[in-house]
């Protein structure tokens, strides 16, 4: 049986992390294929419901990539993202989504190497954690991996779903 391959959705700011991903490509820095990138104009544009939607659809992890504080192309969108992420992390925990599955990272356009490190690290971490509890709840989608189930409150899961 093949190893558990986590699904990671990346919401990347066009001006920094998305460009860093381009740079990683140009520099041929290989990293796990698990991450799939959605281009955003700013990390501050990432609506909490996009993150929730990704988890509901079976993502094992979500990575938001924004500019370093002070470097936002739109003055301070990244700081708004930071606040939203802080709050959303707490909400997700209530639904059994471990905060280790939801990352916000500052990755500047020139930091292709850092992008690779972050993706490597996140993929490894998620492999340790196993599939998202929401993912495992879906019938017929059982993926082998971490056998200890994370705490899930099924009532609440239903409430969003």
């Amino acid at each position: 049986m093949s190893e558990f391959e986590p699904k990671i959705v990346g919401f990347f700011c066009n001006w920094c992390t998305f460009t860093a991903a381009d740079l990683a490509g140009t520099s041929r820095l290989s990293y796990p294929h698990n991450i799939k990138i959605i281009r955003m104009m700013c990390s501050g544009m990432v609506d909490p419901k996009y993150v929730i939607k990704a988890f509901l659809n079976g993502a094992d992890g979500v990575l938001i990539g924004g500019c370093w504080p002070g470097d936002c192309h739109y003055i301070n969108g990244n700081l708004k993202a930071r606040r939203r992420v802080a709050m959303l992390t707490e909400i997700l925990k209530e639904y059994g989504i471990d905060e280790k599955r939801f990352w916000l990272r500052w990755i500047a356009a020139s930091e292709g190497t850092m992008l690779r490190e972050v993706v490597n690290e996140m993929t490894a971490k998620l492999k340790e954690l196993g599939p998202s509890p929401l993912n495992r709840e879906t019938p017929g989608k059982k993926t082998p991996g971490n056998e200890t189930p994370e705490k899930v409150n099924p009532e609440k899961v239903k409430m969003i779903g």
Partner: protein
Amino acid sequence: MSERIGFYICHCGINIAYRVRVAEVAAYASTFPGVVVARDYLFMCSDPGQELIEKDIRNLDLTRVVVASCSPRMHEKTFRAACQRAGLNPYHAFHMVCVREHGSWVTENEDEATEKARVIVRAGLKRVSFQNALIPSQFSVNSNSLIVGGGIAGMQAAIDIASAGFKAYLVEKAPTVGGHMLQYDKAFPTLDCTACIGTPKMVAVGQDKNVELRSYAEVEHVSGFVGNFKVTINNKARYIKSNCTGCGDCAKVCPVDFPNEWDVNTKMRKAIYLSFPQAVPVRYVIDKRTTAPCRTACPAGTNVQGYVQMVKTGNYQQALNIIMERLPLPGVLGRVCPHPCEIDCRRAEVDSAVSIRDLKRFAADHARLEDVPMPMVEEIDKKIAVIGSGPVGLTVAYYLRRKGFKISMFESMEKPGGMLRTGIPDYRLPPSILDQEINHILSKGVELKTGMALGRDFTLASLKDQGFDAIFLGIGAHVPVKMNIENEDAEGVVDAVWFLRKENLERARSAKKRVVIIGGGNAAMDTARVAVRSGAESVSVVYRRTEKEMPADHEEIEGAKEEGIEFITLTGPKKVVTENGRVIGIECIKNELGPADAGGRRRPVPIAGSEYVIACDMIIPAIGQSVETAPVIKDTPFELTAWGTFKVDPDTMQTSVPGVFAAGDAVTGPATVVEAIAGGHKVVTAIERYLNQEMDLFDAERKQKEENSVPEEKNYVPIPEKAAIVARAKATFVEPLSRKSTFEEVDLGLSEAAAQSDAAKCLNCGGCCECKLCVDTCKAKAIDHDIKDQREIVDVGSIIIATGFDPLDPTPMTQYGYGRYANVFTNLEFERLSNATGPTLGKLLKRDLNDRMKFTEPPKSVAILHCIGSRDINYHEYCSRTCCMYALKYAHLLKDKCGHNTQVYNFYIDMRCFGKGYEEFYKKVQSEGVRMIRGKVGSIKEAKNGMLTVLAEDTLSGRMVEIEVDMAILCTAMEPRTNAQDVMRKFGIGIGADGFFQEEHPKLAPVSTPSSGVFLAGACQGPKDIPDTVAQAKGAAAECLALSAKGIVEVPPMISWIDPDVCVGCQVCIGLCPYSAIEFDDFNSISIVNSAVCKGCGSCAGHCPSGAAKVRHFTDQQVFAEIDGLLLN
């Protein structure tokens, strides 16, 4: 209508196809609902590739197109254009999926790469059907350009833009344009003189009508977008108007010297200076910083730095003139001021504070009061009565007289001077000095009436009747405060005020044999020392705390001790012991120090049962004075404070009676002379405003003060690291034995040599000392010390950043000894030596071992060290690109200027002579006999005689080499400017891993940035030599011109929109919008986006609780579809 989707995947030669099985992905896409065609092709971006799409759109009636290829940041525009050509709205029809940068190039396994491509293609196919037609807005382009940085890049770009007929604003933060290139001497490989090729460019930007030169200016703020930027420029105050002729007369008289930044501190300049003779604009500039701390510490605001500098240069008259601007009694203050200025003096951080008070006295003793100029003013027909002739009365009288008012001064005693005459003993302040200074004030037309006491000989009402327009009360505090102990009225108890007055005015010699003085202030010290002189055999000072808490000046306490006065501390008076009504002793009680009081001083606590008696014949309490208000309030109901002083407005000093002002001890209670003078100055301003009916100015000032309550950052001149330790100048004092019996002055003042050397210690914290000698000497009348920074807002359509580089500071590389060894130079220092306007006028000379600003003889041997901080993982990994070549140039110049027998060693890692004519130059220099040693220098050591030993490995022969040289030159790296981060944020551009500004594409967009309309030129983008810089500048100018010439710019339509049917009017988005682009429509109770201002960041959409705010092209439906595509089969 159902969607008809076309899918295209690119091989990108083999870049994609070597990892992603493109045909398989295309086959997968063809099974996707709505896909009518799915193709793979070798180069989708090529002409045939684009044509393929266009044909399919036409022939197969495609409604949507998805291309999977490189990053959308690369070719999104290309394919959008293709769709548009084929008649589709590109925003509606087109989506691009990145399978190269995010796929084939970063995934090692073919299966994984193909799978990843399949998943992201699926997401793209899902998304595209939800896209909407958008039409980009068009805006006109302002044809002006802004260029930031006046080096060769900025100048070239400005000239090119100007010659095309458009206007260029060239902003340079230094006082002159030119930049690094003009600091150099020759330019490799052609060895043309940089001044010869650079100064014409400087002149051109200075003279061209289309170039708006803003030197000594900085961009503070940028707003707007491509074609329509609004830029705030701060034109820093030069203090020199544009009619400056550049003659340099001002610099000749300026007393303040600083190292010249333009010459990288190898030469001095004045506080008023021109960076170098060919500077453009040829307009001097004054280096002014935060007002010096001594000046702000002085209650009267005396220009301390100014007169200290004047003493330094021996211009004692000007020193006195400066003092007299704020202090009407220079000789008095030079003797009795407690000098708060010296407490704040920053020189104390090096060794000790400048002896400011002694310098003031020196100036007063060595210049003539009669020669102090009076302002040329017309007589004003307003009469002012000044009551009291103490320091505050004299201040008010003198400075109002200088403004032209008519002054009458009333004094109750026989002679003017107040406490200065009655309270300060003659050995500290000789009466001749006081008379001389008061007479000078009177000689300016102040009428003095002595023997006239308020309440006895005249009243305020009688003054009004005599036609006085304003009245000033400066009656001081002359009434002794009582001790409130038993037998206080016994014979032999005399208060300090009366005792001193009697001794000072009548020479009464009234002291008895054994005198006890109660108190620890300056009055107590004065009394004690006068008692000694007036015949007492023993004098004791009784003070309730310890000596540390005594308010008296340290030097007064010391002086008293030298004269044999006994100090009995921690002791308080309890009762006067009498016999037949005469004092025979004083009963005292011992104290200990308890907890601190509100003022921070520890409170004395009596120790019960410790009473004892000190036998004495005379007791003189010196514990304070109060104001004698009774005769004044008898006629006029003044409001008083709880302390019994006059109540005044703290800004206007006006009493409760309009038109009557008060200051000095009568308001503050007993205080220092300089504090009284400070109050006097406030009164002068207030009375002038009162008489001109301008009292509302105070309100305006108060308001302004409240608004600017943030303290400004202190920008003092930095303390030099290598300042020599100089002992504080000491005045000469008369020996205690000989001075004890006489009232002659004790302090004899400083010698001229001591005064000048002490004045030379001044660090000139405030930059310019404002002696204003330059103002008098300037024939063009171009100097105005009151000019302020001026902000202007300019509209431009495009911006070029050409801010250049900083040279690396090699001081931290201690192995090379830069800064410690006299003859280790940086490249820029060497350039200045070689330059004809530098410290040696172009001669290459060694530095004096003891004086970094002195140069001696030509070197006989020189080591040139390449790659200092470049290609070094401890500093910068990049190559600075210019060092190899200028190192060769230095070798040539040394051979040329110092003779062919000069030994020159080049220590290099690799020679990089890549440009046109560079390799040839290398060969030529080698043929001149320059030694090339391949290896990096490990260390430099200096011998006692200044010879340097250079230790390196010759990697070609594999041996260590040790070479003795006279001089070493460090070829330092080019670094990003220290303020690169600020510039990046201001203009919304990016910084690369090396710290330089990031171009949009390293090959195809080398001068563009992610911010549309903002371009890069020169070394701010990366290390560059002059030819490359000029070429890039011309490229950036061409980009600006392209915008200006077209006149129209399209702005991407991906901006926010608020659905009016959904918005609930909560207005949260209004607070979130960083551009204030959202307004509230009161009538409909909804928020509305101003599309001209919105930039599409999505801050509103990311938050909107009702989901009404969306960013076009990033709607919930579109993003959800993409998420679905990524995660669901």
